[in-house]
Protein backbone atom coordinates (compact mmCIF):
# COMPACT_ATOMS: atom_id res chain seq x y z
CA UNK A 1 0.00 0.00 0.00
CA UNK A 2 1.21 3.44 -0.93
CA UNK A 3 1.55 5.55 2.21
CA UNK A 4 2.29 8.74 0.29
CA UNK A 5 -0.51 10.60 2.03
CA UNK A 6 1.52 10.35 5.24
CA UNK A 7 4.17 12.52 3.57
CA UNK A 8 1.61 15.24 2.89
CA UNK A 9 0.26 14.81 6.43
CA UNK A 10 3.77 15.05 7.91
CA UNK A 11 4.55 18.28 6.09
CA UNK A 12 1.27 19.92 7.06
CA UNK A 13 1.67 18.98 10.72
CA UNK A 14 5.28 20.20 10.63
CA UNK A 15 4.09 23.57 9.44
CA UNK A 16 1.26 23.61 11.99
CA UNK A 17 3.72 23.01 14.78
CA UNK A 18 6.34 25.35 13.34
CA UNK A 19 4.10 28.39 12.89
CA UNK A 20 3.81 29.10 16.60
CA UNK A 21 1.24 31.85 16.11
CA UNK A 22 -0.98 29.50 14.12
CA UNK A 23 -0.50 26.73 16.65
CA UNK A 24 -1.23 28.85 19.69
CA UNK A 25 -4.10 30.83 18.20
CA UNK A 26 -5.86 27.72 16.99
CA UNK A 27 -5.55 26.18 20.44
CA UNK A 28 -6.52 29.29 22.39
CA UNK A 29 -9.36 30.41 20.14
CA UNK A 30 -11.86 27.67 21.10
CA UNK A 31 -11.03 28.17 24.76
CA UNK A 32 -11.76 31.87 24.35
CA UNK A 33 -15.12 31.08 22.78
CA UNK A 34 -15.98 29.02 25.81
CA UNK A 35 -14.65 31.57 28.27
CA UNK A 36 -16.31 34.66 26.81
CA UNK A 37 -19.27 33.71 24.66
CA UNK A 38 -20.07 30.65 26.74
CA UNK A 39 -20.10 32.31 30.10
CA UNK A 40 -21.77 35.50 28.89
CA UNK A 41 -24.55 33.71 27.05
CA UNK A 42 -25.12 31.09 29.67
CA UNK A 43 -25.68 33.70 32.36
CA UNK A 44 -28.34 35.27 30.12
CA UNK A 45 -29.99 32.07 28.96
CA UNK A 46 -30.03 30.65 32.45
CA UNK A 47 -31.86 33.77 33.65
CA UNK A 48 -34.54 33.48 30.93
CA UNK A 49 -35.05 29.81 31.39
CA UNK A 50 -35.04 29.80 35.17
CA UNK A 51 -38.68 30.92 35.10
CA UNK A 52 -39.76 27.96 32.95
CA UNK A 53 -41.04 25.05 34.98
CA UNK A 54 -38.68 22.12 34.46
CA UNK A 55 -40.12 18.87 33.18
CA UNK A 56 -40.30 16.51 36.10
CA UNK A 57 -38.00 13.52 36.03
CA UNK A 58 -35.78 14.80 33.20
CA UNK A 59 -32.25 15.94 34.08
CA UNK A 60 -31.68 19.63 33.40
CA UNK A 61 -28.57 20.79 31.63
CA UNK A 62 -27.36 24.38 31.91
CA UNK A 63 -26.62 26.52 28.89
CA UNK A 64 -22.82 26.28 29.17
CA UNK A 65 -22.99 22.49 28.84
CA UNK A 66 -25.50 22.80 26.02
CA UNK A 67 -23.37 25.21 23.97
CA UNK A 68 -20.01 23.52 24.71
CA UNK A 69 -21.07 20.80 22.29
CA UNK A 70 -21.86 23.53 19.79
CA UNK A 71 -18.45 25.13 20.25
CA UNK A 72 -16.72 21.82 19.53
CA UNK A 73 -18.79 21.53 16.36
CA UNK A 74 -18.20 25.13 15.34
CA UNK A 75 -14.44 24.87 15.85
CA UNK A 76 -14.34 21.68 13.84
CA UNK A 77 -16.28 23.41 11.06
CA UNK A 78 -13.95 26.42 10.91
CA UNK A 79 -10.75 24.44 11.16
CA UNK A 80 -11.89 22.01 8.48
CA UNK A 81 -13.19 24.64 6.08
CA UNK A 82 -9.86 26.45 6.24
CA UNK A 83 -7.85 23.24 6.22
CA UNK A 84 -7.49 23.27 2.44
CA UNK A 85 -6.14 26.79 2.40
CA UNK A 86 -2.55 25.57 2.59
CA UNK A 87 -3.10 23.82 -0.75
CA UNK A 88 -3.98 27.15 -2.31
CA UNK A 89 -0.80 28.72 -0.96
CA UNK A 90 1.22 25.73 -2.16
CA UNK A 91 -0.30 26.17 -5.58
CA UNK A 92 0.32 29.92 -5.72
CA UNK A 93 3.90 29.64 -4.50
CA UNK A 94 4.71 26.90 -6.96
CA UNK A 95 5.23 24.22 -4.31
CA UNK A 96 2.36 22.18 -5.68
CA UNK A 97 4.32 21.61 -8.88
CA UNK A 98 6.81 19.44 -7.05
CA UNK A 99 3.97 17.29 -5.73
CA UNK A 100 1.98 17.20 -8.97
CA UNK A 101 5.07 16.23 -10.96
CA UNK A 102 5.89 13.39 -8.55
CA UNK A 103 4.51 9.85 -8.85
CA UNK A 104 2.31 10.42 -5.78
CA UNK A 105 -1.31 9.66 -6.74
CA UNK A 106 -3.37 12.83 -6.45
CA UNK A 107 -5.97 11.40 -4.10
CA UNK A 108 -3.14 11.06 -1.58
CA UNK A 109 -2.83 14.82 -1.52
CA UNK A 110 -6.50 14.97 -0.54
CA UNK A 111 -6.11 12.21 2.07
CA UNK A 112 -2.95 13.74 3.52
CA UNK A 113 -4.37 17.19 3.96
CA UNK A 114 -7.63 15.72 5.34
CA UNK A 115 -5.74 13.61 7.84
CA UNK A 116 -3.82 16.59 9.18
CA UNK A 117 -6.97 18.73 9.32
CA UNK A 118 -8.70 15.95 11.21
CA UNK A 119 -5.82 15.71 13.67
CA UNK A 120 -6.03 19.44 14.34
CA UNK A 121 -9.78 19.11 14.97
CA UNK A 122 -9.15 16.26 17.42
CA UNK A 123 -6.68 18.38 19.37
CA UNK A 124 -9.09 21.29 19.47
CA UNK A 125 -12.08 19.15 20.46
CA UNK A 126 -10.14 17.68 23.37
CA UNK A 127 -9.01 21.13 24.50
CA UNK A 128 -12.60 22.38 24.48
CA UNK A 129 -13.80 19.38 26.43
CA UNK A 130 -11.12 19.77 29.07
CA UNK A 131 -11.47 23.53 29.30
CA UNK A 132 -15.27 23.31 29.23
CA UNK A 133 -15.31 20.88 32.13
CA UNK A 134 -12.89 23.15 34.02
CA UNK A 135 -15.20 26.15 33.75
CA UNK A 136 -18.25 24.12 34.67
CA UNK A 137 -19.69 22.33 31.65
CA UNK A 138 -21.30 19.12 32.88
CA UNK A 139 -19.89 16.78 30.23
CA UNK A 140 -19.91 13.05 30.98
CA UNK A 141 -21.88 13.79 34.17
CA UNK A 142 -22.41 10.64 36.19
CA UNK A 143 -20.53 8.48 33.65
CA UNK A 144 -18.24 5.64 34.73
CA UNK A 145 -14.65 5.72 33.46
CA UNK A 146 -15.42 3.24 30.69
CA UNK A 147 -18.55 5.15 29.68
CA UNK A 148 -16.49 8.36 29.55
CA UNK A 149 -13.84 6.79 27.35
CA UNK A 150 -16.48 5.36 25.03
CA UNK A 151 -18.23 8.72 24.92
CA UNK A 152 -15.00 10.48 23.96
CA UNK A 153 -14.37 7.91 21.24
CA UNK A 154 -17.91 8.49 19.99
CA UNK A 155 -17.42 12.27 19.92
CA UNK A 156 -14.12 11.94 18.06
CA UNK A 157 -15.72 9.59 15.54
CA UNK A 158 -18.36 12.18 14.78
CA UNK A 159 -15.76 14.95 14.65
CA UNK A 160 -13.66 12.78 12.30
CA UNK A 161 -16.28 12.13 9.63
CA UNK A 162 -17.62 15.64 9.82
CA UNK A 163 -14.19 17.22 9.48
CA UNK A 164 -13.27 14.91 6.60
CA UNK A 165 -16.35 16.07 4.71
CA UNK A 166 -15.51 19.74 5.07
CA UNK A 167 -11.79 19.19 4.49
CA UNK A 168 -12.58 17.46 1.20
CA UNK A 169 -14.80 20.39 0.29
CA UNK A 170 -12.10 22.84 1.32
CA UNK A 171 -9.47 21.00 -0.73
CA UNK A 172 -11.78 20.99 -3.75
CA UNK A 173 -12.31 24.74 -3.48
CA UNK A 174 -8.61 25.44 -2.89
CA UNK A 175 -7.45 23.50 -5.94
CA UNK A 176 -10.05 25.22 -8.13
CA UNK A 177 -9.33 28.80 -7.11
CA UNK A 178 -6.49 31.23 -7.72
CA UNK A 179 -6.75 33.73 -4.90
CA UNK A 180 -6.69 33.25 -1.13
CA UNK A 181 -9.01 36.25 -0.83
CA UNK A 182 -11.56 34.50 -3.03
CA UNK A 183 -11.35 31.42 -0.88
CA UNK A 184 -11.73 33.49 2.27
CA UNK A 185 -14.88 35.01 0.74
CA UNK A 186 -16.41 31.64 -0.10
CA UNK A 187 -15.59 30.30 3.37
CA UNK A 188 -17.26 33.22 5.06
CA UNK A 189 -20.27 32.80 2.81
CA UNK A 190 -20.50 29.11 3.72
CA UNK A 191 -19.90 29.40 7.45
CA UNK A 192 -22.76 31.84 8.06
CA UNK A 193 -25.71 29.62 7.04
CA UNK A 194 -24.04 26.43 8.24
CA UNK A 195 -23.29 27.83 11.66
CA UNK A 196 -26.44 29.82 12.33
CA UNK A 197 -28.94 27.45 10.70
CA UNK A 198 -27.93 24.73 13.10
CA UNK A 199 -28.61 23.64 16.65
CA UNK A 200 -25.09 24.58 17.80
CA UNK A 201 -26.00 27.53 20.02
CA UNK A 202 -29.78 27.33 20.33
CA UNK A 203 -32.59 24.85 19.66
CA UNK A 204 -33.95 24.63 16.12
CA UNK A 205 -37.48 23.85 17.30
CA UNK A 206 -38.59 27.46 17.14
CA UNK A 207 -37.09 28.14 13.67
CA UNK A 208 -39.43 29.18 10.85
CA UNK A 209 -40.04 26.25 8.45
CA UNK A 210 -37.59 27.42 5.78
CA UNK A 211 -34.75 27.73 8.25
CA UNK A 212 -35.72 24.44 9.82
CA UNK A 213 -35.51 22.78 6.40
CA UNK A 214 -31.97 24.12 6.04
CA UNK A 215 -31.02 22.86 9.46
CA UNK A 216 -32.25 19.37 8.58
CA UNK A 217 -29.83 19.06 5.67
CA UNK A 218 -27.08 20.84 7.59
CA UNK A 219 -24.23 18.47 8.53
CA UNK A 220 -23.40 20.66 11.52
CA UNK A 221 -26.76 19.83 13.08
CA UNK A 222 -25.93 16.13 12.92
CA UNK A 223 -22.48 16.65 14.39
CA UNK A 224 -23.92 18.64 17.30
CA UNK A 225 -26.55 15.97 17.86
CA UNK A 226 -23.85 13.30 17.97
CA UNK A 227 -21.68 15.26 20.38
CA UNK A 228 -24.61 16.02 22.73
CA UNK A 229 -25.68 12.40 22.73
CA UNK A 230 -22.24 11.22 23.78
CA UNK A 231 -21.32 14.11 26.10
CA UNK A 232 -24.63 14.74 27.84
CA UNK A 233 -26.87 11.73 27.30
CA UNK A 234 -29.96 10.58 25.42
CA UNK A 235 -32.55 12.24 27.61
CA UNK A 236 -32.18 15.76 29.05
CA UNK A 237 -33.72 19.21 29.00
CA UNK A 238 -32.00 22.48 28.16
CA UNK A 239 -33.38 25.98 27.51
CA UNK A 240 -36.84 24.65 28.14
CA UNK A 241 -36.63 22.01 25.42
CA UNK A 242 -36.79 18.30 26.05
CA UNK A 243 -34.09 16.41 24.11
CA UNK A 244 -34.40 12.71 23.50
CA UNK A 245 -32.21 10.72 21.17
CA UNK A 246 -32.88 7.18 20.03
CA UNK A 247 -29.93 5.03 18.90
CA UNK A 248 -31.52 5.05 15.45
CA UNK A 249 -31.27 8.86 15.32
CA UNK A 250 -27.63 8.71 16.26
CA UNK A 251 -26.81 6.06 13.69
CA UNK A 252 -28.69 8.08 11.09
CA UNK A 253 -26.77 11.23 12.03
CA UNK A 254 -23.50 9.37 11.68
CA UNK A 255 -24.47 7.85 8.33
CA UNK A 256 -25.60 11.26 7.10
CA UNK A 257 -22.12 12.61 7.87
CA UNK A 258 -20.47 9.61 6.20
CA UNK A 259 -22.59 10.22 3.10
CA UNK A 260 -21.71 13.91 3.14
CA UNK A 261 -18.00 13.09 3.38
CA UNK A 262 -18.29 10.59 0.51
CA UNK A 263 -19.96 13.15 -1.76
CA UNK A 264 -17.39 15.80 -0.84
CA UNK A 265 -14.57 13.37 -1.57
CA UNK A 266 -16.04 12.66 -4.99
CA UNK A 267 -16.09 16.38 -5.71
CA UNK A 268 -12.52 16.86 -4.48
CA UNK A 269 -11.30 13.87 -6.48
CA UNK A 270 -12.93 15.27 -9.61
CA UNK A 271 -11.39 18.71 -9.07
CA UNK A 272 -7.95 17.25 -8.41
CA UNK A 273 -8.00 15.08 -11.52
CA UNK A 274 -8.88 18.13 -13.60
CA UNK A 275 -6.41 20.45 -11.92
CA UNK A 276 -3.42 21.65 -13.93
CA UNK A 277 -0.62 23.28 -11.97
CA UNK A 278 2.25 24.94 -13.79
Amino acid sequence: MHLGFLTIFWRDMLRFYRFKTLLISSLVQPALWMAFFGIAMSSNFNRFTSELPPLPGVPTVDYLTFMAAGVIAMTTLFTSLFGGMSLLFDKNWGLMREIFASPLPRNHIIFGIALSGMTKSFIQAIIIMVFGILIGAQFFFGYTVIETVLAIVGILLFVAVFSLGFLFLSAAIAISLESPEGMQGIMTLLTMPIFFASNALYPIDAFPPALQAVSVINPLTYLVTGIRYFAIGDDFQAIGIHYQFTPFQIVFAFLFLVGFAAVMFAIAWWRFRKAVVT
Partner: protein
Amino acid sequence: MTEPIISVKELFHQYGDFTAVDGISFEVSEGEIFSFLGPNGAGKSTAINVLITLLPLQQGSATVAGFDVVKDPEQVRESIGIVFQDVTLDRDMTCREILEFHGNLYKMPNAERKDRIEELLALVQLENKQDTRTKNLSGGMKRRLEIARGLMTRPKVLFLDEPTIGLDPQTRLRMWEYIKAVNREGTTIFLTTHYMDEADHLSDRISIIDKGQIIATGTPSELKNTLGEDLIYLETSDGDGTRKILSGMEMVKHITQKPTGIVAMLNGDGTKILPMIIEALSREGIRVSTVNLKKPSMDDVFVHYTGRELRDEGAEKPSMAVTRAGRR
Protein backbone atom coordinates in the same frame (compact mmCIF):
# COMPACT_ATOMS: atom_id res chain seq x y z
CA MET B 1 24.04 6.07 -27.75
CA THR B 2 21.21 3.86 -28.89
CA GLU B 3 17.64 4.99 -28.29
CA PRO B 4 17.23 8.71 -27.67
CA ILE B 5 16.35 9.39 -24.04
CA ILE B 6 13.92 12.14 -25.03
CA SER B 7 12.08 11.99 -28.31
CA VAL B 8 9.51 14.62 -29.29
CA LYS B 9 7.57 14.62 -32.53
CA GLU B 10 5.38 17.42 -33.87
CA LEU B 11 4.47 18.77 -30.46
CA PHE B 12 1.81 21.50 -30.42
CA HIS B 13 0.42 23.30 -27.40
CA GLN B 14 -2.16 26.04 -27.28
CA TYR B 15 -3.54 28.23 -24.53
CA GLY B 16 -6.89 29.34 -25.90
CA ASP B 17 -6.04 30.71 -29.33
CA PHE B 18 -2.42 31.46 -28.44
CA THR B 19 -0.04 28.86 -29.82
CA ALA B 20 2.78 28.47 -27.32
CA VAL B 21 4.45 25.46 -28.93
CA ASP B 22 4.04 25.25 -32.67
CA GLY B 23 5.04 21.83 -33.92
CA ILE B 24 8.47 21.04 -32.53
CA SER B 25 10.39 17.79 -32.99
CA PHE B 26 13.73 16.92 -31.46
CA GLU B 27 15.70 14.14 -29.82
CA VAL B 28 18.06 14.11 -26.88
CA SER B 29 20.70 11.40 -26.55
CA GLU B 30 21.56 9.75 -23.27
CA GLY B 31 24.31 11.55 -21.37
CA GLU B 32 24.23 14.86 -23.17
CA ILE B 33 23.44 18.38 -22.03
CA PHE B 34 20.76 19.63 -24.35
CA SER B 35 19.50 23.22 -24.28
CA PHE B 36 16.48 25.11 -25.43
CA LEU B 37 17.69 28.63 -26.10
CA GLY B 38 15.14 31.31 -26.70
CA PRO B 39 13.59 34.50 -25.38
CA ASN B 40 10.98 34.62 -22.63
CA GLY B 41 7.67 33.46 -24.02
CA ALA B 42 9.24 31.36 -26.77
CA GLY B 43 7.46 28.24 -25.49
CA LYS B 44 10.38 26.68 -23.60
CA SER B 45 8.58 26.26 -20.29
CA THR B 46 5.43 25.01 -21.96
CA ALA B 47 7.40 22.32 -23.79
CA ILE B 48 9.17 21.32 -20.57
CA ASN B 49 5.87 21.21 -18.68
CA VAL B 50 4.47 18.77 -21.24
CA LEU B 51 7.57 16.58 -20.97
CA ILE B 52 7.41 16.48 -17.16
CA THR B 53 3.67 15.66 -17.35
CA LEU B 54 2.47 18.83 -15.64
CA LEU B 55 0.61 19.88 -18.78
CA PRO B 56 -1.47 17.46 -20.84
CA LEU B 57 -0.10 16.65 -24.27
CA GLN B 58 -2.46 18.25 -26.77
CA GLN B 59 -1.01 17.16 -30.08
CA GLY B 60 2.06 15.25 -31.19
CA SER B 61 3.99 12.63 -29.25
CA ALA B 62 6.72 12.61 -26.64
CA THR B 63 8.69 9.92 -24.85
CA VAL B 64 11.00 10.48 -21.91
CA ALA B 65 13.38 7.75 -20.71
CA GLY B 66 11.59 5.32 -22.97
CA PHE B 67 8.12 6.04 -21.60
CA ASP B 68 5.26 7.76 -23.36
CA VAL B 69 4.16 10.89 -21.49
CA VAL B 70 0.51 10.12 -22.26
CA LYS B 71 0.44 6.37 -21.70
CA ASP B 72 2.94 6.02 -18.84
CA PRO B 73 3.09 9.33 -17.01
CA GLU B 74 3.88 7.53 -13.73
CA GLN B 75 7.02 5.93 -15.17
CA VAL B 76 8.07 9.23 -16.73
CA ARG B 77 7.72 10.90 -13.33
CA GLU B 78 9.78 8.22 -11.65
CA SER B 79 12.58 8.62 -14.21
CA ILE B 80 13.07 12.38 -14.07
CA GLY B 81 14.21 15.13 -11.76
CA ILE B 82 13.06 18.72 -12.10
CA VAL B 83 14.38 22.12 -11.12
CA PHE B 84 11.61 24.60 -11.77
CA GLN B 85 12.03 28.10 -13.09
CA ASP B 86 11.14 29.89 -9.88
CA VAL B 87 12.12 28.78 -6.42
CA THR B 88 9.74 26.10 -5.20
CA LEU B 89 11.01 25.56 -1.68
CA ASP B 90 8.83 25.72 1.40
CA ARG B 91 10.29 28.70 3.26
CA ASP B 92 9.68 27.14 6.64
CA MET B 93 11.23 23.75 6.08
CA THR B 94 14.91 23.02 6.59
CA CYS B 95 17.17 21.81 3.80
CA ARG B 96 17.10 18.30 5.19
CA GLU B 97 13.31 18.31 5.51
CA ILE B 98 12.97 19.49 1.91
CA LEU B 99 14.97 16.48 0.76
CA GLU B 100 13.17 14.12 3.16
CA PHE B 101 9.83 15.28 1.83
CA HIS B 102 10.92 14.81 -1.75
CA GLY B 103 12.36 11.33 -1.14
CA ASN B 104 9.10 10.31 0.54
CA LEU B 105 7.01 11.61 -2.35
CA TYR B 106 8.94 9.19 -4.53
CA LYS B 107 8.64 6.33 -2.01
CA MET B 108 12.38 6.04 -1.43
CA PRO B 109 13.22 3.44 1.23
CA ASN B 110 14.38 5.02 4.51
CA ALA B 111 18.01 3.88 4.48
CA GLU B 112 18.54 4.81 0.86
CA ARG B 113 16.90 8.18 1.41
CA LYS B 114 19.15 9.01 4.37
CA ASP B 115 22.29 8.02 2.47
CA ARG B 116 21.29 9.95 -0.59
CA ILE B 117 20.58 13.09 1.46
CA GLU B 118 24.08 12.97 2.97
CA GLU B 119 25.58 12.44 -0.46
CA LEU B 120 23.72 15.30 -2.08
CA LEU B 121 24.20 17.78 0.75
CA ALA B 122 27.90 17.15 0.29
CA LEU B 123 27.70 17.50 -3.49
CA VAL B 124 26.04 20.91 -3.33
CA GLN B 125 28.04 21.91 -0.24
CA LEU B 126 25.11 22.53 2.04
CA GLU B 127 26.08 20.15 4.85
CA ASN B 128 26.41 22.91 7.39
CA LYS B 129 23.07 24.40 6.32
CA GLN B 130 21.06 21.20 6.59
CA ASP B 131 19.02 22.38 9.57
CA THR B 132 18.58 25.91 8.27
CA ARG B 133 15.15 26.91 7.03
CA THR B 134 15.20 27.70 3.33
CA LYS B 135 14.03 31.27 3.85
CA ASN B 136 17.42 31.97 5.41
CA LEU B 137 19.39 30.69 2.41
CA SER B 138 20.95 32.87 -0.29
CA GLY B 139 19.66 32.67 -3.86
CA GLY B 140 22.55 30.45 -4.93
CA MET B 141 22.09 28.08 -1.99
CA LYS B 142 18.38 27.75 -2.77
CA ARG B 143 19.21 26.83 -6.34
CA ARG B 144 21.78 24.30 -5.19
CA LEU B 145 19.28 22.77 -2.81
CA GLU B 146 16.79 22.51 -5.64
CA ILE B 147 19.36 20.78 -7.81
CA ALA B 148 20.05 18.37 -4.95
CA ARG B 149 16.32 17.77 -4.68
CA GLY B 150 16.07 17.16 -8.42
CA LEU B 151 18.79 14.53 -8.07
CA MET B 152 17.35 12.76 -5.01
CA THR B 153 15.85 9.85 -6.92
CA ARG B 154 18.86 9.38 -9.23
CA PRO B 155 16.86 10.48 -12.28
CA LYS B 156 17.84 9.48 -15.79
CA VAL B 157 17.04 12.99 -17.00
CA LEU B 158 17.30 16.20 -15.02
CA PHE B 159 15.17 19.07 -16.31
CA LEU B 160 16.49 22.52 -15.49
CA ASP B 161 14.20 25.41 -16.35
CA GLU B 162 16.25 28.63 -16.41
CA PRO B 163 18.60 27.37 -13.68
CA THR B 164 20.59 30.56 -13.17
CA ILE B 165 17.92 33.20 -13.57
CA GLY B 166 18.43 35.98 -11.06
CA LEU B 167 21.79 34.76 -9.79
CA ASP B 168 24.91 36.90 -9.65
CA PRO B 169 27.72 36.16 -12.14
CA GLN B 170 29.95 34.33 -9.65
CA THR B 171 27.14 32.13 -8.42
CA ARG B 172 26.19 31.39 -12.03
CA LEU B 173 29.68 30.12 -12.72
CA ARG B 174 29.48 27.83 -9.71
CA MET B 175 26.06 26.59 -10.77
CA TRP B 176 27.53 25.70 -14.14
CA GLU B 177 30.21 23.71 -12.37
CA TYR B 178 27.55 21.75 -10.46
CA ILE B 179 25.55 21.12 -13.60
CA LYS B 180 28.61 19.83 -15.41
CA ALA B 181 29.58 17.66 -12.45
CA VAL B 182 26.10 16.14 -12.37
CA ASN B 183 26.29 15.47 -16.10
CA ARG B 184 29.69 13.79 -15.75
CA GLU B 185 28.08 11.33 -13.34
CA GLY B 186 25.89 10.22 -16.22
CA THR B 187 22.69 12.22 -15.83
CA THR B 188 21.23 13.55 -19.06
CA ILE B 189 20.42 17.23 -18.71
CA PHE B 190 17.66 19.12 -20.46
CA LEU B 191 18.07 22.82 -19.93
CA THR B 192 16.11 25.88 -20.95
CA THR B 193 17.73 29.26 -20.89
CA HIS B 194 17.55 32.67 -22.42
CA TYR B 195 21.22 33.32 -21.65
CA MET B 196 23.42 32.88 -24.71
CA ASP B 197 26.58 32.37 -22.72
CA GLU B 198 24.92 29.74 -20.57
CA ALA B 199 23.74 27.71 -23.55
CA ASP B 200 27.12 28.15 -25.23
CA HIS B 201 29.13 27.19 -22.16
CA LEU B 202 27.11 24.23 -20.94
CA SER B 203 25.47 22.51 -23.86
CA ASP B 204 26.54 19.64 -26.01
CA ARG B 205 23.70 20.58 -28.33
CA ILE B 206 21.37 23.55 -28.56
CA SER B 207 17.99 24.07 -30.16
CA ILE B 208 17.19 27.70 -30.78
CA ILE B 209 13.49 28.16 -30.14
CA ASP B 210 11.47 31.22 -31.04
CA LYS B 211 7.72 31.78 -31.22
CA GLY B 212 7.08 28.14 -30.43
CA GLN B 213 9.25 26.74 -33.19
CA ILE B 214 12.74 25.28 -33.34
CA ILE B 215 14.66 27.30 -35.86
CA ALA B 216 18.07 25.70 -35.59
CA THR B 217 19.74 22.79 -33.81
CA GLY B 218 23.38 21.89 -33.45
CA THR B 219 26.44 21.93 -31.28
CA PRO B 220 27.48 25.43 -30.18
CA SER B 221 30.38 25.40 -32.66
CA GLU B 222 28.23 24.07 -35.51
CA LEU B 223 25.73 26.84 -34.93
CA LYS B 224 28.44 29.45 -34.83
CA ASN B 225 30.15 28.00 -37.90
CA THR B 226 27.03 28.46 -39.97
CA LEU B 227 27.82 32.13 -39.58
CA GLY B 228 31.24 31.68 -41.08
CA GLU B 229 34.56 31.81 -39.39
CA ASP B 230 34.58 35.51 -38.63
CA LEU B 231 32.24 38.45 -38.65
CA ILE B 232 33.20 41.98 -39.63
CA TYR B 233 31.25 45.10 -38.97
CA LEU B 234 31.78 48.12 -41.25
CA GLU B 235 30.57 51.71 -41.28
CA THR B 236 31.37 53.43 -44.57
CA SER B 237 30.65 56.59 -46.50
CA ASP B 238 28.51 54.68 -49.07
CA GLY B 239 26.35 51.86 -47.72
CA ASP B 240 24.86 50.73 -51.04
CA GLY B 241 28.26 50.73 -52.75
CA THR B 242 29.75 48.76 -49.90
CA ARG B 243 27.02 46.12 -50.13
CA LYS B 244 27.54 45.81 -53.87
CA ILE B 245 31.28 45.28 -53.52
CA LEU B 246 30.95 42.86 -50.61
CA SER B 247 28.33 40.74 -52.35
CA GLY B 248 30.69 40.35 -55.28
CA MET B 249 33.43 38.93 -53.09
CA GLU B 250 33.76 35.15 -52.88
CA MET B 251 34.88 35.00 -49.26
CA VAL B 252 31.85 36.96 -48.04
CA LYS B 253 29.16 34.49 -47.19
CA HIS B 254 26.30 36.68 -46.08
CA ILE B 255 25.57 40.36 -45.56
CA THR B 256 23.26 41.87 -42.97
CA GLN B 257 22.22 45.51 -42.95
CA LYS B 258 22.36 47.20 -39.54
CA PRO B 259 21.01 50.65 -38.67
CA THR B 260 24.34 52.38 -39.10
CA GLY B 261 26.54 49.78 -40.75
CA ILE B 262 26.88 46.38 -42.36
CA VAL B 263 27.78 42.98 -40.92
CA ALA B 264 29.47 40.51 -43.24
CA MET B 265 30.01 36.84 -42.48
CA LEU B 266 33.26 35.55 -43.84
CA ASN B 267 34.27 32.18 -45.23
CA GLY B 268 37.83 32.47 -44.13
CA ASP B 269 40.25 34.15 -41.79
CA GLY B 270 39.07 37.70 -41.11
CA THR B 271 42.52 39.04 -40.33
CA LYS B 272 43.52 38.31 -43.94
CA ILE B 273 40.23 39.19 -45.65
CA LEU B 274 39.64 42.51 -43.91
CA PRO B 275 42.59 44.35 -45.57
CA MET B 276 41.41 43.07 -48.93
CA ILE B 277 37.92 44.43 -48.31
CA ILE B 278 39.22 47.82 -47.23
CA GLU B 279 41.44 47.94 -50.33
CA ALA B 280 38.55 47.06 -52.62
CA LEU B 281 36.40 49.74 -51.01
CA SER B 282 39.06 52.41 -51.31
CA ARG B 283 39.50 51.59 -55.00
CA GLU B 284 35.86 52.66 -55.43
CA GLY B 285 36.46 55.73 -53.32
CA ILE B 286 34.47 54.49 -50.34
CA ARG B 287 35.91 55.58 -47.01
CA VAL B 288 35.69 53.24 -44.02
CA SER B 289 34.98 55.05 -40.76
CA THR B 290 34.50 52.11 -38.33
CA VAL B 291 35.67 48.51 -38.43
CA ASN B 292 35.19 45.62 -36.06
CA LEU B 293 36.31 42.03 -36.47
CA LYS B 294 35.13 39.21 -34.20
CA LYS B 295 34.36 35.54 -33.88
CA PRO B 296 30.63 34.82 -34.04
CA SER B 297 28.94 34.48 -30.64
CA MET B 298 25.68 32.80 -29.77
CA ASP B 299 24.13 36.27 -29.86
CA ASP B 300 25.09 36.55 -33.50
CA VAL B 301 23.70 33.10 -34.15
CA PHE B 302 20.42 34.09 -32.59
CA VAL B 303 20.23 37.34 -34.54
CA HIS B 304 21.03 35.45 -37.71
CA TYR B 305 18.22 32.96 -37.26
CA THR B 306 15.53 35.16 -35.78
CA GLY B 307 16.38 38.49 -37.28
CA ARG B 308 16.40 40.19 -33.92
CA GLU B 309 18.43 40.39 -30.78
CA LEU B 310 17.69 38.15 -27.85
CA ARG B 311 17.00 40.60 -25.12
CA ASP B 312 14.41 40.56 -22.46
CA GLU B 313 11.46 41.10 -24.74
CA GLY B 314 9.63 42.75 -21.90
CA ALA B 315 11.79 45.83 -22.24
CA GLU B 316 10.65 46.44 -25.80
CA LYS B 317 7.11 45.17 -25.71
CA PRO B 318 5.82 45.39 -22.17
CA SER B 319 2.22 44.55 -23.02
CA MET B 320 3.24 41.33 -24.75
CA ALA B 321 5.42 40.28 -21.85
CA VAL B 322 2.59 40.75 -19.42
CA THR B 323 0.13 38.60 -21.34
CA ARG B 324 2.70 35.88 -21.80
CA ALA B 325 3.66 35.86 -18.16
CA GLY B 326 0.01 35.61 -17.25
CA ARG B 327 -0.46 32.60 -19.46
CA ARG B 328 2.51 30.67 -18.31
